[in-house]
């Protein structure tokens, strides 16, 4: 064993440049495989409801997926509005534990402004035992004032802090010509939740109703809110209602009532199944990414093979000397396989650096686009399987040059015959 280590370490040192390049290619392969599977699992977990907090979304008749993407992940556009009365009815339903309205239509520099009630902060738990909390120095908005509570990512990107004043812009996409006249004060900045909510500006729902230029059609007729005059409930409308049920049965019953027998609304339930349908649709992208990663593994295995094989001619004499000193053919064979495995092992260690870089880059993009945060240190079986698999692949790649070393003729390569 000590002998093998000496032979392998000296060879790696002697062929330092090719070893370095090969180690880099293995690191790239191992890191990519780890990153592809870790990103896949973490995005699946983030988008399929394990930490969403709500059970269902009620919205206008249309696509369940669009409803969930719009309301829970704050992506996509709203499929339409539902009347306030529908929100009140579902809120009063004894099977419903929590119903939080969601009204959207404005943004601030691309970050969407959502009107809601303070129940989102006082009753809703985005994860078990965890509520949206303003950081020190801030507080929740007062429903009767033009105040906002902003997500941590919004604060980070826009520079808005507690006490700052801002004007909303009409629509979900930022257009500086669409500036509303209303001014809002930042009452608080929420603690980071590592969820899409970090990218949202929350204001009282009344603020959305009363925003200049907004027309309410809850009753079917158009209504524009007037300052100092209470808005009749009939005219109010919301983009969606986020729901938490008291039991699974409630979900099944409401699904039956709203989706199968009703005609005016859609209940996206269960949220994780809705999101799974999205991943089913884009599953081929993941497969292509995995395929690319596997191809890189193959290329790196080939580079191990080539880098060692290319040294075989110059090393024939070395093998002959080792054999003359008593090394068996199997010892020489094992040394080459061990050398290939050692290169793969060094590459696998380097793979964690590549993994960290890819996760950091992909994580930043995914967070900026969706608010979902990837955890670099989160355990995934691939973090063990990929390095071990890479070492096994490396050892297999070493078999071809090892066979050449195995077949080296001692007498021919040792010294010229006298």
């Amino acid at each position, binding site marked *: 064993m*000590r*002998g093998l280590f*000496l032979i392998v370490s*000296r*060879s790696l*040192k*002697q062929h330092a440049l090719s070893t370095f390049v090969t180690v880099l290619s293995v690191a790239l392969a191992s890191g990519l495989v780890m990153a592809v599977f870790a990103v896949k699992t973490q995005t699946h977990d983030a988008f399929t409801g394990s930490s969403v907090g709500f059970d269902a979304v009620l919205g206008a008749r249309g696509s369940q997926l669009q409803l969930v993407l719009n309301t829970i992940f704050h992506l996509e556009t709203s499929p339409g509005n539902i009347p306030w009365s529908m929100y009140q009815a579902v809120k009063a339903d004894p099977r419903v534990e929590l119903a939080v309205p969601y009204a959207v239509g404005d943004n601030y520099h691309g970050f969407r402004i959502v009107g809601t009630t303070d129940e989102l902060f006082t009753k809703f738990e985005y994860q078990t035992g965890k509520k949206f909390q303003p950081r020190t120095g801030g507080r929740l908005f007062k429903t009767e004032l033009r105040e906002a509570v902003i997500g941590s990512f919004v604060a980070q990107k826009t520079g808005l802090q507690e006490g700052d004043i801002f004007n909303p812009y009409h629509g979900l996409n930022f257009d500086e010509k669409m500036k509303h006249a209303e001014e809002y004060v930042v009452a608080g900045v929420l603690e980071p939740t590592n969820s899409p909510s970090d990218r949202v500006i929350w204001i009282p729902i009344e603020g959305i109703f009363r925003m200049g230029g907004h027309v309410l059609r809850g009753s079917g007729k158009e209504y524009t809110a007037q300052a100092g005059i209470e808005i009749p409930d009939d005219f109010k409308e919301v983009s969606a209602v986020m729901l938490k049920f008291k039991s699974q049965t409630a979900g099944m019953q409401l699904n039956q009532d709203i989706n199968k027998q009703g005609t005016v609304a859609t209940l996206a339930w269960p949220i994780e199944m809705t999101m799974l349908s999205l991943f089913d649709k884009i599953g081929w992208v993941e497969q292509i990414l995995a395929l690319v990663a596997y191809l890189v593994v193959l290329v790196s295995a080939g580079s191990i093979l080539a880098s060692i094989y290319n040294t075989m001619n110059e090393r024939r*004499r*070395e093998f002959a*000397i*080792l*054999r*003359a*000193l*008593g*090394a*068996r*053919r*199997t*010892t020489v064979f094992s040394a080459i396989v061990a050398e290939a495995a050692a290169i793969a092992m060094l590459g696998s260690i380097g793979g964690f650096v590549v993994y960290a870089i890819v996760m950091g880059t992909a994580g930043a993009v995914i967070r900026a686009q969706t608010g979902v945060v990837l955890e670099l240190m989160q355990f995934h079986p691939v973090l063990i399987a990929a390095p071990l698999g890479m070492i096994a692949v490396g050892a297999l790649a070493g078999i071809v040059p090892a066979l050449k070393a195995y077949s080296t003729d*001692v*007498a021919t390569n*040792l*010294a010229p*015959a*006298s």
Partner: protein
Amino acid sequence: MPVLEILDLQKSFRSPDGEQIPVIHVASFKLNEKEQVAMEGSSGSGKTTFLNLIAGILQADSGQISVAGKRMTGQPEAVRDSIRAAHIGYVFQTFNLLQGYTALENVALGMMFGRGVDYDYARELLQRVGLKDRMDYLPRQLSVGQQQRVAVARALAGKPTLVLADEPTGNLDFRNAKEALDLIRGVCKESNAALLLVSHDREVLAQFEKVENLSTLNSAAAQEARR
């Protein structure tokens, strides 16, 4: 008991036109414990082949070779490797040091496949051959004479009972050749190892009390084929 015993040893090679050419046909040869014998032979007389047969690097066509009482001929290659690692030290004309390894590591390689690595003993050997201050030098950083000393230390590292030396002074100038020869003989004597040294150099052969001639040992057929 002889350290090396050879009986009716035959080895032939196939020529490019398919003809079998006898190279070695030695009826009998013995080397006793601690004995030092020089083997004379002209260039191309089969001296290296003879040593390679004794070391088990080449497989004999027929006949018997025993090293330290262990039969070398007719054994699988792995067994021959084990016998070589345990009982034989080999000094080559071209030294055959491994270039990526230090002097100390080269000596350690000499014991790696036999008794196991003992770096203290490797250091002791290098000290004995006068390379106490050169242990961590690579072969290319050593003079030719110093490289030969490392090769001698390596040959003795496995505590062999038999040392084979193939033209060990062939690449050295007169002064270095004499020093190397004295060193090999001296260290073998100190280590109680028998020495079989092949050379065609008259001055080297003159140093030995017993000199055998490979051509004389070889049968007429082999001699004829060598011509």
